[in-house]
Structure formats: structure tokens, C-alpha cells
């Protein structure tokens, strides 16, 4: 049946509903484009035939194929757009450097889009305030400037803003500025201790 491949692409994205980025389905996309091309060509020939020979009974099939083409287009556009939205969310969650496994799932154009997005976000942030403001931190207003964290595994040395170095050893607890720890908390090296 027509448009099945397109629905499959959409379902693929729906399966990963928590915002993860699945691998770019290059094959699927190519198949859809091929299908669209064949549909278009069939339509093209049928339209010529209908015009020249006056065969009105071809018109429903032309209409059907046209609808399929539009549907395919819509599905593909939705797929690509949803992926871009997820990639944009990745910037806010992971920072400007994406982990390698995520980058692997993006195609070249998406990577390009990502770097453009990064650039425009950075220039926007620079324009705020006197020397720029990093708005990707502290999505919710923080309760305190410093938090207590516990080290879950040996991570070696860690440098904080004023240059001092802290040795992160397993089972040691530290009281550090919140923004420095968030990255490590996400990575699972530190654990926020709430007393």
C-alpha cells in the first residue's frame, strides 16, 4: 500500500517518546522519495493521457496518487521537523558539545543545523546583559547557590571557577557551587545530597 513507509518513520519517532533521537533513517527516507517519484511519474503520464485522449476514468487514480504524494510529503516533513526539535532540546540539556553516540545518530545536514542553532543561541546570550548571560543553566530558580554533593565514583581532579582544584574521590562529600556540579550530576559522578 502507498505511504506505509512514511507511517513507519513516524512510528519510529513515536516509539521514542521521551525525546531521544533515534538514528537517521536514511534508507526509509530514500524509499519514500522513490515512491513519491514513481507516483509522480505515473501521475504525469496519466495526466498527459487524460488530457490528450480525454479519458476521464483516469482522474480518480490521479487524484489518489496526488493525495498519496501529499501525505508522503507531510509525513516526511513532520519526521524531519520533529527530529530538529529534539536536536534543539539536546542543546539545552547537554550543552554545546554532544556526546558521540548522539552525534552518530544525526545526519550531516542535521549537524549543520545544530551548529547554526548553537551559533544563534550563543550570539543571543552574548547580547543579554553586560557580558552575556548563560540562560541554559538554572531552568528553575535555584534554592541555594551551593549544594552538597556526594561522589559516587573516583573522578580525579576537578577545577572550579576560581582555579582551585578538588579531588573527587569515592564517598567524599563536597559543598560546591551549584552550576559547576550540574554537569557532573547529570553524568552520574556526583549525587546531590538533600538533608
Amino acid at each position, binding site marked *: 500500500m502507498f505511504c506505509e513507509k512514511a507511517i513507519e518513520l513516524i512510528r519510529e519517532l513515536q516509539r521514542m517518546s521521551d525525546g531521544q533521537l533515534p538514528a537517521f533513517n536514511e534508507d526509509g527516507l530514500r524509499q519514500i522519495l522513490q515512491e513519491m517519484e514513481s507516483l509522480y511519474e505515473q501521475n504525469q503520464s496519466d495526466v498527459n493521457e487524460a488530457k490528450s485522449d480525454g479519458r476521464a476514468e483516469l482522474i480518480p487514480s490521479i487524484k489518489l496518487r496526488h493525495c498519496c504524494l501529499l501525505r508522503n510529503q507531510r509525513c516526511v516533513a513532520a519526521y524531519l521537523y520533529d527530529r530538529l526539535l529534539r536536536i534543539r532540546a539536546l542543546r539545552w540539556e547537554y550543552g554545546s558539545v554532544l556526546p558521540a553516540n548522539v552525534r552518530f545518530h544525526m545526519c550531516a545536514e542535521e549537524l549543520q543545523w545544530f551548529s547554526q542553532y548553537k551559533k544563534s543561541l550563543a550570539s543571543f546570550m552574548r547580547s543579554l546583559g553586560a557580558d552575556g548571560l548563560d540562560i541554559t543553566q538554572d531552568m528553575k530558580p535555584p534554592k*541555594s*547557590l*551551593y549544594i*552538597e554533593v*556526594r561522589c559516587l565514583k573516583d573522578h580525579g581532579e576537578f577545577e572550579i571557577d576560581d582555579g*582551585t*582544584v*578538588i*579531588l573527587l*574521590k*569515592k*564517598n*567524599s*562529600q*563536597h*559543598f*560546591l*557551587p551549584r552550576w559547576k556540579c550540574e554537569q557532573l550530576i547529570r553524568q552520574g559522578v556526583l549525587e546531590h*545530597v*538533600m*538533608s
Partner: protein
Amino acid sequence: MFVTDIRKEFYEVVANQRVALLVASDIDALCACKILQSLFHCDQVQYTLVPVTGWQDLGTAFLEHKEQFRYFVLINCGANVDLLEMLQPDDDSVFFICDTHRPVDVVNVYNDSQIKLLIKQDDDLGVPSYDDIFRDEDDEEGGDSGNESDEGSEPSGKRRRFDEGAVERRIERQRAKREWEARRREILFDYEQYEYHGTSAAMMFFELAWVLTKDTKDMLWWAVIGLTDQWVHDKITHMKYVTDIATMQRHVSRHNHRNEDEENSLSIDCMRISFEYDLRLSLYQHWSLYESICNSSYTSCNFKLWTLNGQKKLQEFLADMGLPLKQVRQKFHSMDMSIKENLREVIEESSNKYGMKDIRIQTFGVHFGYKNRFLANDMVHACAALLESAEKDDGDNFINALDSLSRSNLDRLHSGIDLAKRKLIAVQQTVASCICTNLILSQGPFLYCYLMEGTPDVKLFSKPMALTLLCKYLLRAFVHSTRNKRCKLLPLIMAAPRDVEKGTVIVVGIPPESETSDKKNFFGRAFEKAAESTSSRTLHDHFDTSIIELKTEDRSKFLDALITLLS
């Protein structure tokens, strides 16, 4: 040197700096650490907390952190040894030591620049005066060299006359020096011979919080737990405990008189600390009364529950109070209200008849929410069980125990209480079996008991605090059960297997049991000397010098050396 104004000389110094906290593994240290952490959170002082279990740990932790930190706070470790000698720090490192171990090493007392002791100077210390121990070498050298330079510049004729005078003076000086040194050795020996404990570290930090007017009920509760830990583990005398309880009672009443009357009563969820004159039965509110009586050392030793006679006496005791067995064996919460109402007075009356005059002890309890009531010694037992749990390693245990002290981690506290119950049962059974099988042998100057490897629950007793607890209960039980008058006054040494693969045992020595004991322990020095003389392979790693590790093969020669040393 001793810190006189703890706010100016300690807190204001570290308030803008980054501090490393090195905390020993005992409940008092954990409580002190919690209090200090809350103060630091208030003032946003950045710190790093590192748990240490012994001298080696302390050395490693110091080496790892000495590049990054200038200020170190040591809690319950470091006072009783020459710290600068051991750690070899740079000149700008400053150590703030709050330690209950006494005697404080004289070098730590008289060092003015790098060591600051957060200890009250009148805390029963008896430190020898400076001139008795340290002598400026310059005085006599100056005298000598002055003479020598004189001699050098004088012509040879006069030199001979000066020679005789100089030689006499030198002989005189040397004799005085030898006398002084002999007296110094004696003074130091007397000073360092006995090991004991001073005021709780948690109470010191609570006082700091009070001086800063940043004290809260949580901190007060932790201070109470720290003090109770010293009492449960028999580190301080009864007199000192009662005095410190009175101090805490003043703080408790100050915190409690806050607009509480019928109109403005506090919500049930607020934390209330109350003074209790409560029973000396461990964990009785979280257990059944019967189990608690069977497994608390005070009642068990007085009734001699390991004998048949003792069991009968216990039944009589319960009958005398009119408590039905069915009620008494139920969980305490489910006992009839009519029984629970006057329970303490009823038990006190009956126990007076059975010779237990001190079944009630002054302590504090906390109450928050509808279900949560805890006595201070419940918390100590739970926390100690978590701290020395055999299932996890030291670092995790420290974290678990530290967390269980917060009121928001009640599930951890309850798991701690379960572990504590198992530990108390294990202690009781081990005591019973040791007494019944006569495992305690009198070696002359001391009693000795060795736990064999196959003993049930022996893994629990490879940890220092648990073994010390067992040791004290055992000694008390022995004193109650033996008829030999002389044996009642002897101290006890206990050994238990620590690490089967490495073949080591842990050896603990405690002073003799008596009503008026001052809890001073001489085994630290004795163990050191015995180990030296027999060249046994020992590890004096623990902060309490009376707890050491020894290779199993060296056990017998070590003991023989101890016997000769102490008789």
C-alpha cells in the same frame, strides 16, 4: 595551642576559605560533623568531607588534599599523637582539631602556629607545664659557646685557669640536664600512661553554633546523640555524663519554651526534644519489652540470664510487676495502654527489689510526627550498627550512618534499628556462651578471652566498636557471675578474628569494671611495649590506642609479653 574564643579563632578564620573535614568513624564524630556541616551550609563555606578510619587513612587523605586546602578540621582524630611529625605538612597548613581522645600530645598543645585545639582548657586535661618538658637549648649552648669563644681569644696562659672553671661548670650543667631529662621522662610517662576521653566533640560544635546564635533543634539533637554515644560506649564516667546532661538540659529548655500553650501549640510535625528519665533497656520502644530486657546488658547481667536460675528470676520479676507474658512479648507499640502508662515507675519499683538500683537513666527523647519517637540511645545503637555493618565497605557505611542522622531519612534509621537489634542479640548470645563455656581465662594481671573463628556472628565482632561493646558486656557479666573476688578487679583483653585471609586478629583491652571507675585505659602503652619487645607484627592503626591488629601467629608471644609487662 588551645583556642579560647572559638568564634574568632576558628569560625571567622575559615568562613571565607575552603576547608577539608577529616572525620573519624564514630558516632560522636558523625554528629559533630553534621552540626558543622549545617553551620557551613548556612554561611556557604565550601568544604570537602573525607571519612577516615585510622592513622593510615588520615595520612593518605592529608596527602591527597594538601595541595588544595590550607585549613583542615579534624574531628575525633589527631590530638593524641604528634601530628606535625606524622603528617609533615607545609608551613602554611593549619589544623583545627576537635578530639575527645586524651591525653593531648604535648607538641600539639604547645605548638602556636599550625595546630589549634578546639578543646576547652579546663576539660580535665592536666597538661604538664611548658618548662617541665621543653627547654630552650640556646641558654646552655650560648653559655658554652660564649666560654669557648672567650677561650679562643684569650692567650694560652690565662686559658688554663679558665679551663678548670669552665669544665666544672660544664659538668654541673650536664648533671642538671640529665636530672631534668629524667624528670621530664617521668612527667611524660605519667601524663601519657592512661588513655581516656574528654567532652564530646558534638557538644563543642553545638556550643560554637550557640555562640553564633545559629543553633537549631536538629543541632541540639545531634549534640545529645554525640553525648549519649560516649555514655553507651562507656567512654566517660557517670559523673561527667550527668554534668553534661545538665548542660544539655539548659539548652533543651531554652529551645522548648517558645510560645507553647493551648492557643499557640506547635504542629505535631515539629520536632520536640524532651528530657526523659527513662529505662536503661536498649531499644525497648522499638522492640518487645521482653526482648529488650533479655538483651540489655544491665538487666541481663543483674539477672544472670544465661543461667536457668536467671530465667526464673526474670519470670518472677515480670509476675511481680503484674505484666502478663503475652503483653510483654508483643511489640511495644501494641502493648495495652494501661500497662504502658506507668511502666517506668512500675519497673523501677520492682527492679529496686531485685538489686537493680539504676534502671532509670537521665536521657533525652525526640518526637516528630505521629509515629516517630526516639530516645537518644536508640539512635546511637542504630547509627553504630549502620556504621559497622559487615555487608558494605567502610565508605558506604559512613555515608549510611551519616544519612541516618537526618530526620528525612527515617527508612535508613529503621534499618539501622533492625541491624542494632540483631547486633544486641548476637552480643547477648556470645556473652552467654562465653560465660557458660568458661572462655574467659585469668592470665594473672588481666582476664583474656579469644573468640574462635567458627563462633556465630564473629564477623560482627571484627569491627572495633562492636568488639568493644561485647568486651564491656562480657566483663560486666563475668563480674556478676564469678565468685573469685580478685578476678572482679581485673581488666579484660579480648581478641577476635579480623581478616581470615590475611590472618589477623583484632585485640581490644578495657579497664576493670567498677562503680567508680574513671575509665582510664592503660592498654595503649602496654600494647606498644609488648609489641616492641616481642617484635610481633602489629598494626596500631586505630585512633584509640587500646585497639590493635595483630597477626594470629604472634598472639601467644604477644600475650606472654603483656603478662610479664603487667605483673
